[in-house]
């Protein structure tokens, strides 16, 4: 292809709006024309939503054009009786949450201040957020989706029902796929009864990871832990549930952990602000098992990551997450030094942020067989490699038969 300008001109000639390298269809007919034009031009396309992910995944310079469904007519169908909301991909997450709240329902994840993010972007980015403990990971919220492939084919998967195993679980595969397999046109998401109570407590003591250990040992349900590397900030426990459950939890948290109640809404607000990732900021995002939490904590604190401005910690029974945020682009050496530490810990991690994304991601699933399966999916769904055609971090490997294959051939 000859570049962005040619494609933009071609699409505009076809009556499709294009602004600053972003294709912005405003109707089904325009979307269809845009997809046809892009296909004919064999254009490399980056799907984008509200671009709150910054440039790492949506940098227009990596593609011939970006494509967003933000200007399309948006539709929301909320079925409170079933507990499902169906929305077109360009609907804002914040709007959906508000609509759910108006009916006493809750949409997970709670993106905090990122109300502008779109349904397509949130699902494609695949982050589950802090309330995963209560509602499950994002992949368990996505019940159905309608997708379009780079060759123009469209198909629905799943159903807007809370239980369904009809066909392959493609809705879950779409979570975190980042537009590499398909564009999401609409999505059906599960809704939950809004928690009757949301309470917060601060835990005394200097070291949050100890509080976490005590909490796990005590097996107090319905709680997650938040803390930051700022010594001024307390370790906070958050709980949500029915009034009866929270009364029991509050009693145990006070008597067994010596925690004091604080204002949950104010804490949520502050936490959400502090977690906010400036599109220009760089960060490292680490996930580990909850039992590894103290070890990860110790390592990252001892090493004192000179370039990291701040660490945010989040621990739930299923997972411990930490995000380190820093201001300046770390050097490759600093990045590698951090990776060295992380490699020795039971965790996985990735770097997010501005600039050229570095193919540095860790995790045991980077095994050859998995890469094969991922690549095969990629090549089957998008054989011309037109959509989000960037090297995928852990997917660069080639097919490699495991050792056991040799045993057989020798047999």
């Amino acid at each position, binding site marked *: 292809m000859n570049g962005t300008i040619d494609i933009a001109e071609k699409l505009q000639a076809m009556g499709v709006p294009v602004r600053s390298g972003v294709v912005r269809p405003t109707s089904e007919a325009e979307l269809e024309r845009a997809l046809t034009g892009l296909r004919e031009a064999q254009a490399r396309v980056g799907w984008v939503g509200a671009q709150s992910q910054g440039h790492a995944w949506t940098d227009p310079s990596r593609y011939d054009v970006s494509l967003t469904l933000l200007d399309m007519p948006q539709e929301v169908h909320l079925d409170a009786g*079933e507990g499902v909301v169906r929305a077109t991909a360009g609907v804002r997450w914040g709007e959906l949450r508000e609509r759910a709240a108006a009916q006493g329902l809750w949409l997970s994840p709670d993106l905090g201040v990122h109300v502008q993010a779109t349904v397509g972007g949130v699902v494609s980015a695949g982050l589950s957020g802090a309330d995963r403990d209560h509602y499950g990971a994002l992949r368990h919220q996505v019940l159905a989706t309608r997708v379009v492939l780079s060759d123009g084919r469209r198909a629905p998967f799943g159903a807007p029902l809370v*239980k369904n*195993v009809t066909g392959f679980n493609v809705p*879950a595969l779409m979570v975190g796929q980042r537009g590499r397999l398909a564009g999401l046109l609409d999505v059906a998401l599960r809704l939950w009864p809004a928690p009757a109570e949301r309470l917060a407590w601060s835990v005394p003591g200097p070291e949050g990871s100890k509080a976490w250990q005590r909490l796990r040992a005590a097996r107090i*349900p319905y709680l997650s832990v938040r803390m930051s590397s700022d010594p001024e900030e307390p370790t906070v426990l958050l709980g949500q*549930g029915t009034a009866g459950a929270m009364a029991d939890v509050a009693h145990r948290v006070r008597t067994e952990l010596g925690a004091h109640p604080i204002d949950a809404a104010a804490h949520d607000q502050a936490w959400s602000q502090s977690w906010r990732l400036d599109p220009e900021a760089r960060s490292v995002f680490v996930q580990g098992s909850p039992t590894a939490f103290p070890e990860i904590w110790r390592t990252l604190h001892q090493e004192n990551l000179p370039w990291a401005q701040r660490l945010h910690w989040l621990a739930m029974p299923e997972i411990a997450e930490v995000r380190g945020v820093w201001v300046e682009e770390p050097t490759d050496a600093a990045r590698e030094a951090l990776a060295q530490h992380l490699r020795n810990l039971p965790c996985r991690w990735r770097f997010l942020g501005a600039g050229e994304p570095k193919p540095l991601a860790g995790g*045991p699933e980077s095994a050859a067989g998995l890469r094969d399966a991922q690549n095969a999916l990629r090549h089957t769904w998008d054989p011309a490699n037109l959509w989000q055609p960037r090297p995928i971090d852990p997917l660069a490997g080639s097919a490699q038969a495991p050792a*056991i*294959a040799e045993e057989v051939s020798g*047999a």
Partner: protein
Amino acid sequence: MLSAELRDQLRSLLGPDGYLDAPSQRLSYESDSLSLVRHSPDVVLLPKDTREAALAMQALARAGVPIVPRGAGTGLSGGATPVPGAVSLVTTRMRRILRIDADQRIAHVQAGVINVELTRAAAPFGLFYAPDPSSQMACTLGGNFAENSGGPHGFKYGQTARHIRGARWINPRGEIVDWLDPVVDPEGLDVLSLLVGSEGMLGIVTEILVDLLPIPEASETLLALFDSLPNACESVTALIASGLRPSAIEILDQLTIQAVEASVFRAGYPQEAQAVMLLDLDGTAGEVEELRAALVTILREHGAFQTQHATDPEQRKRLWAGRKGAYGAMGRLAPDLYVADVVAPRTRLAEIVGLASEICAELDLPLANVFHAGDGNLHPNISYDRRDPEQVRRVLLAGERIMQACVERGGTLTGEHGVGLEKRDAMCSLYSDEELAVHALVREAIDPGHRMNPGKLLPVRGCREARTRSPYLPGMPEYDVEVRESTP
């Protein structure tokens, strides 16, 4: 047909306990619990671990032989039913619980471990495994993984997928792929989530990492009696709307109550009730108390004429015995049972249950309902005798009409038993040929040779043809299996 050389190779690899080819040995592998369809596998392979399974699959891959994975064979959609030319690869010798990590709340199991054994093994640690299909005394965790099985407590705890943290998977080429570090959010494309519920069509799972949950501080069972089935259904709709979250909401209708009460599974359900609802409540002590009070109010408002609650474990077990033994009890009604598995929107439960009973009445078939009401997952059960072809015809017709009624009202084909062979062609009631071709890309990517469980889940021929016939009527042309030449 398997060559003599391949047979020898498999026999020497798996030993006499792992290789069965005598007709009498193969007999019990002819079908799963959808007994309408039967076919004898050429050979039955029972590897005892991942390594043996991988080696066998490599040998089969080289010879281009199709494989039908099988756990305990309790599936109800013909998923593990053999197809011509295929070998059955059965996991029932892989029955070891490899590790329970009480600190991480994770268990590492072989795929052939029986569901209930895991919960028993976890209990001393104060933990339990949440997915509890009603077949849990027999079904394997591998089968649960492959079907994304549910169960009564799925209402609160979700289906199997929600509890999977990792797996050891053998792809169709016989290569082992590991995710044995507990995955929370996978990096890259989420292949593991795709494998869950893939009905054995993308390879075989030999080991699984699952979440264990702390046993709740308090739990109890609530029994509500109704003078009509529609009232019981309406009260579920109201209960969902109220936002209350018991851990299970199950309904049994009158025919089921009678069958249960006349059987060894007697639970003491009053026979004058037209429907009973069984609810489990769990959480903290205060939470359970609060929940019970709120539930009883709603149930009474919607026609429950009596409610009782049980906290004593023995009493609770007894109340649940009727639900868990319902299918066994229905054995009294006729030699065979067809268990439908559809999902109705939760606001239309009463309507669709009513339609199912009209359909069965019209076709002169006895219908007993026992179902996961909280999730809208209906199981209209039809007792029949498979030796009578005329009855079989009516049963199949009823099954199709119930599915159709459900789909037309916004429901879907299956909530937990899978598509398998049974509902394969009914996929055409939801999707067009063009859409199904996109669904098929999943298999195309992982199993381009179509050797894993061929002829299941995806219609083999075009929808026009599929709509005009049923895939498992006697005399159908060889199950439509299509295995490609270009394997592996």
